[in-house]
């Protein structure tokens, strides 16, 4: 049975960093189509820095791990993604508090807090073709799964919903972020931030499996 403790958190962040490195070119390519070609580079740089931080100051709880991640992403990613992911991880960390282990309800709450942080910061609504379109269904699916599922079920539900949410950005016309300048021309492309969000939530499953 999966236990979401600090070991899981560190593994999650490590797998996220691996995913960013592996999909760096893919995320750049998505951003090239409707943005400025930097999302993969930004996320890769940010998560490599997270790995460095984690080994410098090993965290004691999942909350501390996520807070460290938040601060590092905030100071290393830049662009729109930096502050947005930074806020997401910071709100999730705050929501988790000092607990050593995360139960399904706490997990769903943390994901909802992350999602709400992104919305508070970026003012995007669902359907604006941003990472909100991955996080909103993810948080919603997590809430439902937490009613009678275990943490792994919650993580899987969130990851699957995020992936579906990212795919669902394809036909949308962007109304926030850099892609919005393209108007109708933004349709037919996947939002890079939604794609990286799905990768990160999938890494959370991998760390628990």
């Amino acid at each position, binding site marked *: 049975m999966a236990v979401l403790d600090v070991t899981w958190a560190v593994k999650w962040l490590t797998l996220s960093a691996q995913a960013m490195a592996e999909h760096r070119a893919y995320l750049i390519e998505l951003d090239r189509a409707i943005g*400025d070609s930097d999302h993969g580079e930004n996320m890769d740089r940010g998560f490599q820095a997270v790995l460095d931080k984690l080994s410098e100051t090993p965290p004691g709880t999942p909350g501390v791990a996520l807070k460290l991640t938040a601060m590092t992403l905030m100071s290393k990613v830049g662009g729109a993604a930096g502050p947005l992911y930074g806020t997401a991880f910071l709100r999730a960390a705050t929501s988790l508090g000092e607990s050593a282990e995360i139960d399904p309800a706490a997990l769903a709450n943390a994901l909802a807090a992350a999602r709400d942080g992104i919305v508070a910061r970026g003012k995007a609504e669902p359907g604006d073709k941003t990472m909100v379109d991955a996080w909103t269904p993810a948080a919603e699916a997590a809430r439902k799964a937490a009613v009678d599922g275990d943490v792994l079920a919650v993580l899987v539900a969130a990851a699957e919903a995020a992936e579906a949410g990212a795919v669902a950005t394809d036909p949308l016309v962007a109304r926030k972020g850099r892609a919005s300048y393209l108007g109708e021309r933004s349709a037919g492309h996947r939002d890079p931030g939604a794609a990286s969000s799905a990768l990160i939530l999938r890494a959370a499953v991998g760390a628990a499996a």
Partner: protein
Amino acid sequence: MKKLINDPRAVVEESVQGFGLAHANLVTVSTDPTFITRNDAPVSGKVGLVSGGGSGHEPLHAGFVGRGMLDAAVPGAVFTSPTPDQILPATLAVNAGAGVVHIVKNYTGDVLNFETAGELAEAEGVSVRTVLVNDDVAVEDSLYTAGRRGVGGTVLVEKIAGAAAERGDDLEAVAAIGERVNANVCTMGVALSACTVPHAGTPSFDLAEDEIEIGIGIHGEPGRHRIPMENADGITDRLLEPVISDLGIASGDRVLLFVNGMGGTPLSELYIIYRRAAQVLSERGASVKRSLVGNYITSLEMQGCSISVLRLDDELTDLWDAPVHTAALRWGV
């Protein structure tokens, strides 16, 4: 991708180092985190001016650090806004007690990162005002977008707000002047070719030999629409018309005309654009009082240009004429 670089990931760092070596008489380069300040910062009694953004737009912003313009520039990675942990120390370094104005181009990333840095600076007791530059008329429906982008007008805001700070205006006044410039300038750009972000390695968009992108920003992003190639006069008219009509330029208006190269266009071509734009403005009865022609806010090696028109009044004209001593803009000193 063929570039005069070493490691694609070291482009900003090495370029800023070279800038610091070449202009050691003007600026100091801080590393880890990276920012550039004028040598005599903080200037006693003066409002500090900080701008920044992604790199790849050189000479903006580092080239505008110095007397009469910026006190500090904060370069992010290429086309990526800088982070609060760069912006905050730059802000603190140039604060002489009179407060600091952040000049921020309106992009989500820049806005969010400067916002955070501003809050952190306020928490450390520094008064911060933000001037948001959004002069790009290519963004039509700002209701359904992140709003108009900050493009060519940024250079003019930095120069004129810089002059206001240098003459001793207080924090609110400097911010107000910056906002007045922003309210009176509009810009529109065109790309004949894409640019290649070093870490990406492929051109930012694909453009056929007979197509151009109208309404581009400065981040190698595709523009609003794509049209068949036209001659210089046709392109000038296409860029200038929305600028003129958005500003409501009327007969008798005095203006500054700024033709900006995107980095890969010969200066001779910028003057061909200038010629037509000046002719059209005169035909409309506007009087071109000041001009700026050259590569000032670029997109790496992109071919193309932008046209900015700033409506002048006596005060803005005087502030434009005031001495400025930076690596990229210098007069009167």
